[in-house]
């Protein structure tokens, strides 16, 4: 049996590389047309080619979202676009429109089609319909529980993909036009303005329906056990630090399960890491129960900024024992920090010596986007794209 796939979101080439280096088996991203994140960076034709090459060189896969709800005018050039993307080397399209599915499957036998969650597929008969249409994988609706997912897999034997982490829609995907009516932005063509995170008024109170984020870290083993094919992380617009942390954590959890090394303590540590990059509270939503009172907010948007991310490692000078970092958040001598690498190594240490870009000794790295050097004596290989996170402020740690 194939090892379960960890599928990560890529808003641009840098994020794509981070995801793959930190352990994703495959990445998904939007092209310059027809994706449901019209306002994300999205990939040009040349970038799609680079993305596919980068993934394939690591023996990994690249999927392109083509999951808008098409209007007549969108149909004019979609076939040409698909042809271009196939020639760039894409492994699969994520599609919601059955006409597009039939076009791709009729023309390209070797390119997979994954049915988007935009279709909100909720039962095995609908899965069987799409299986007969040649669909290779279904991204199920996020409203299903574990038993329902298992039954679908058992009765269809089709590859099933499940969302495990990230933001959740309040309504069924594809069944929401709130954005169209409130902001004139078409949710089903990539313009969703996240109206479900707005605060509305009733005669007496605020009315909000914003959902907490999804976090199924605790149920990865259950999802593996029922033969889910792919675990999907949401968040094409998220930061590289968030992606490195989330993908890195899930990679470790999955590997530990397959190596029979998953302990409560191990899982708890990874869940703690995940919780530190979360900018909202999380929940399991529908997986083990009906979503209820506790899965949403009642006071409008609830996003916290995360200041744990201290910076990205540019390189490590093994002779001088200096890490060169691109700083993102204030830190200082005495802070307890953790360096983590794409391969999953971590080094926890206290910042003892700190230098500015000209290698003058300083006490505090005050300015985001500046270059700093941190002294660290280690034999562990520190790869490009390693990152440093704060564990404990100097004022709080007694080490």
């Amino acid at each position, binding site marked *: 049996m194939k090892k379960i796939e960890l599928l990560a979101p890529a808003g641009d080439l840098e994020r794509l590389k981070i995801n793959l280096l930190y352990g994703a088996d495959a990445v998904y991203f939007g092209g310059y047309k027809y994706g449901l994140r019209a306002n994300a960076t999205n990939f040009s034709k040349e970038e799609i080619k680079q993305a596919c090459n980068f993934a394939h060189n690591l023996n990994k896969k690249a999927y392109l979202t083509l999951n808008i709800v098409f209007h007549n005018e969108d*149909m004019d050039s979609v076939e040409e676009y698909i042809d271009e993307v196939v020639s760039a080397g894409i492994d699969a399209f994520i599609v919601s429109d059955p006409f597009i599915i039939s076009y791709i499957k009729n023309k390209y036998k070797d390119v997979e089609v994954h049915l988007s969650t935009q279709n909100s597929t909720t039962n095995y008969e609908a899965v069987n319909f799409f299986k007969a249409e040649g669909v290779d994988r279904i991204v199920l609706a996020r409203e299903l529980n574990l038993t329902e997912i298992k039954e679908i897999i058992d009765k269809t034997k089709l590859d099933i993909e499940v969302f495990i982490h990230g933001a959740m829609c309040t309504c069924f995907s594809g069944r929401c036009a709130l954005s169209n009516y409130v902001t004139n932005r078409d949710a089903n063509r990539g313009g969703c303005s996240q109206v479900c995170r707005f605060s509305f008024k009733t005669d007496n109170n605020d009315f909000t329906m914003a959902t907490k984020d999804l976090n199924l870290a605790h149920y990865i083993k259950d999802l593996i056990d029922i033969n889910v094919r792919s675990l999907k992380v949401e968040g094409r617009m998220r930061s590289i630090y968030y992606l490195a942390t989330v993908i890195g954590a899930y990679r470790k959890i999955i590997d530990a399960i397959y190596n029979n090394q998953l302990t409560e303590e191990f899982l708890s540590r990874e869940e703690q890491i995940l919780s530190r990059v979360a900018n909202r509270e999380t929940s399991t939503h529908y997986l083990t129960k009906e979503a209820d009172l506790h899965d949403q907010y009642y006071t409008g948007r609830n996003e916290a900024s995360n200041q744990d991310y201290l910076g990205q490692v540019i390189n490590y000078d093994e002779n001088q024992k200096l890490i060169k970092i691109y700083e993102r958040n204030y830190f200082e001598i005495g802070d307890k920090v953790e360096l983590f690498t794409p391969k999953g190594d971590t080094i926890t240490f206290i910042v003892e010596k700190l230098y500015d870009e000209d290698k003058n000794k300083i006490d505090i790295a005050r300015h985001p986007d500046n270059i700093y050097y941190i002294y660290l004596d280690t034999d562990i290989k520190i790869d490009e794209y390693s990152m440093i996170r704060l564990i404990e402020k100097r004022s709080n740690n007694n080490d």
Partner: protein
Amino acid sequence: MDIIVKPILDNLDSYIKNDINTFLLPLANYSVESTKYYSLDAIKNIKNKYKNINIFISINKNIVNKELSELQEILKEIDKLDIKGIFFYDLAILSYKEKLNLKTDLVWSSTHMVTNYKTCDYYYKKGVKYAHTSKEITKDEIIDIINKSMITPIVELISYPTIAFSKRKLVTNYYKNYNLDIKDNIKVFDDKSRQKFYIYEDKNGTTFILNKLMNGSKILKELLDNNTKYILLKEDLIDHDIFIKCIKNINYYLNNYNKDNNSYNNFIKKQNELLGRNTNFFYRKTIYKVK
């Protein structure tokens, strides 16, 4: 052109008296986004009572595994009733049409997703006869679908538009959060856009309805010019007397179409007085790229 009415009453006399003979009845437990549902028995009774009417049934919820076997039995029952068509959202129904060899026609009705002629044709080739066009596309896009697709479009012309559906119990959650007595509905508004919504909940989830009546009367002439076969009028949340007057106006216009140049202007004037002037997205394109 035939008018399909989605009524709010069990007794259909007042509609039939006004020359309506085609109805859309949402099936209880298997339909969503409606303020009125009909059990299969109620539909059978209606069918027995009114011999000469056409009935479409709506089965538009997202079906889950445990409902599939009962759904099959329901579909077999419906197939015996000489029903004109089933409005469907979930592809399980299309799958069962073939598997169970059902003769009842289907209406592709995936709410906001019926937006282009090529996908309409895809469904037509799969044996779907009708398509209930999205309310979020323009009049020109609808006309394009009418002219370019082989499917028979059903254009929703007058309704309080349903705009979103959630499996969550959002109304219950609201009342619980504020420790208020739980009701099944609530009205909310957005300060910036000044849009108001009627939100209500039943056992299948929560439906959002725009609290502004969509009046598509203005596009009726062009629909007729382009040989549209069906328009759909939904009565949910509309005062029954007003709804009946609206039907009378439309019937009068249909009977006088192309006979009198003033009839269109008079018709629009009357309908605007009755229903307001919200033409929804018929003349307004949505955007999706923000510069």
